């Protein structure tokens, strides 16, 4: 092969790189399917447990065959959406605005969604999916990032996040060094900011996702010091359950999912009883949004799913399976799987104490110019490496 030819060809391929990602989408003549990127456990068709099935009925009714690609992390979700080929994604707040900014998702016409009226009013215009008055998706589920603790060590619930941020002796007389965990995602810097809002009011933090240079530096400094206390950062919920059980972790930011899982396990509770609280500083939380790809090949099926996903029965079932709070308040009552206490167990009463995850962007309301998420990501990677 001629060398110049090879070079030209590779260059041509190179120029088209990534940019051509969207071209791989081809509209089907007849919409008979729907491709969704979702968190594991978000879209169940009764294969694991016959009682948890909110897909089969939808498929029968609409003729849209649902294909689910589960993603373990927000990183993976954004990667998949960037690469294309999907109609919907259940994006968390640390991914949603990035998807909007990257023009990977499209605005939703809520008038086409009959169940929109059921959505919790407090979530309808939430800033992690509403940009310039346009809705880029429908709320799906939410939950707080609670402080989970070992109740053998803490006879009383810890009142402050300081137990995970600052080196100290815990009530059992031993240091917290190596016995606490922090979330692995860069969005965790916001947890530090929430703590600093109370702890250092002079910084003037108004919103943990909108930090100017100084405020950001203070938060980064706090998580850097925290590195010395953390043995391993937690990323996947189930692995954290193992860490509470087998690794001597006694306090960490966590989700109701992990807490419920351990509390439902008699052996684990006998050995390492876990409880959870929301400390006085408040907490961060996640609220997931079902968003539609900018070049969704099956928009009609997608709209049908968006409506279906806001059905009270579906919402309640998902919340019961996932350990989350439904975005539709009506789902909290009369659902067999969730039971009437389910929403409270999963943290529904804490809505007002929660700063919901959203992607920090450069242009922000509180401070004018804020440190953007790409910087958070780089710095947090460096913090974990220290």
């Amino acid at each position, binding site marked *: 092969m001629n060398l110049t030819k090879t070079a030209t060809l590779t260059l041509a*391929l190179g120029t088209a790189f990534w940019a051509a990602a969207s071209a791989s989408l081809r509209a089907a003549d007849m919409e008979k399917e729907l491709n969704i990127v979702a968190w594991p456990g978000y879209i169940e068709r009764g294969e694991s447990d016959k009682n948890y099935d909110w897909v089969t009925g939808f498929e029968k009714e609409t003729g849209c065959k649902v294909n689910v690609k589960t993603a373990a992390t927000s*990183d993976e979700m954004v990667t998949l959406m960037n690469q294309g080929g999907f109609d919907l994604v259940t994006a968390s707040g640390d991914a949603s605005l990035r998807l909007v900014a990257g023009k990977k998702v499209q605005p939703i016409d809520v008038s086409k969604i009959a169940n929109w009226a059921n959505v919790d009013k407090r979530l309808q215009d939430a800033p992690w999916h509403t940009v310039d008055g346009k809705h880029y998706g429908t709320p799906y589920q939410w939950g707080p990032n609670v402080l989970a603790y070992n109740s053998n060590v803490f006879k009383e619930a810890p009142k402050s996040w300081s137990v995970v941020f600052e080196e100290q002796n815990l009530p059992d007389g031993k240091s917290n060094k190596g016995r606490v965990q922090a979330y692995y995602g860069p969005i965790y810097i916001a947890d530090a900011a929430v703590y600093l809002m109370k702890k250092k009011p002079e910084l003037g933090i108004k919103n943990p996702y909108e930090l100017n240079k100084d405020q950001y530096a203070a938060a980064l400094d706090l998580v850097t010091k925290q590195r010395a206390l953390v043995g391993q950062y937690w990323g996947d919920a189930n692995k954290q359950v193992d860490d509470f059980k087998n*690794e001597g972790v006694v306090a960490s930011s966590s989700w109701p999912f992990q807490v419920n899982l351990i509390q439902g396990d008699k052996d684990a509770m006998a050995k390492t009883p876990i409880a959870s609280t929301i400390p006085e500083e408040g907490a961060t939380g996640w609220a997931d949004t079902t968003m539609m790809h900018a070049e969704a090949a099956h928009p009609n099926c997608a709209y049908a799913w968006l409506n279906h996903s806001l059905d009270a029965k579906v919402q309640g079932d998902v919340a019961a399976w996932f350990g989350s709070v439904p975005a539709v308040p009506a789902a909290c009552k009369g659902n067999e799987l969730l039971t009437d206490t389910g929403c409270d167990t999963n943290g529904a009463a804490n809505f007002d104490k929660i700063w919901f995850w959203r992607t920090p962007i450069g242009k922000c309301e509180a401070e004018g110019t804020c440190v953007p998420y*790409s910087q958070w990501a780089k710095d947090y990677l460096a913090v974990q490496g220290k």
Partner: protein
Amino acid sequence: MLNSLSNLFYRRPQLLTALLLGGPLAWIGVVYIGSLFALLIQSFYHLDDFSGTVVHEFTLSTYAELAATANLQIIMRTVVMAALVTLAASIVAFPIAYYAARHARGKWKALFYLAVMMPLWSSYLVKIYAWKLILAKEGIVSWIAATLHLSWLLDGLLSTPIIGGSSLSFSYIGTFLVFLYIWLPYMILPIQAALERVPNDFVEAAADLGATPRQAFRDVIFPLAFPGVIAGSIFTFSLTLGDYIVPQIVGNSRAMIGQAVYTLQGTAGDIPLAAAFTVVPMVIMGFYLLAARRMGAFDAL
């Protein structure tokens, strides 16, 4: 027809070569290498921090960013880990391969073969999670240590700076052990293949000429088996260099190259920096392969 075609090939061997090579060459040579080049090109763009979008203009600023201390640490950490895993794997693999190739016979030989192949066939992920249970603070190793009244030894090991941690599964020791375990068969197989090719006559000749078994090993067997070690090391080194699953499950959360690439091209959306990170293993493996070819390792891969 078939005959004339055959004659044509016999008379024009270049034609046959071209035909044989066409398919795989087009795939690996054009598509695969082309997209590697494309990845390389991406690393010369940069991410606009304010808007979070990629600016498609030639710049070296992404490489300047790659040279930041934190990123260099990621690279160093990964390379050192890969080198140590490779070294340890060759040390652990050699006796197994040597015994299997030169001593085991009949049923024993079959058994050794199975013993090496079986771990290769059991799921990578299930194996990693099994290791988590072995290394956990309340896992098997510490259970054995406690039973044997050796907990002080384990605690001492864990309090060692750098390699220690709050438990084995939260430390470099844990990451190292799991890597070593997962890639070990890839080291054993090429060494064994190289050793089986050492003709017995050579060894006998060495003995006849008065070499002690030790001398025969050092001067005859080992040099002939060394290309096998190099071949195995290509696997263990490169697999360790790019893995992002093992260090995430077992380790102290200090990122390795694979994790950095995965995070940067995912949520952070910093594709130029992710691409610059991928250039590191490409360059390292490039030099490694050139060196390996010099040592004749490709005959033993």
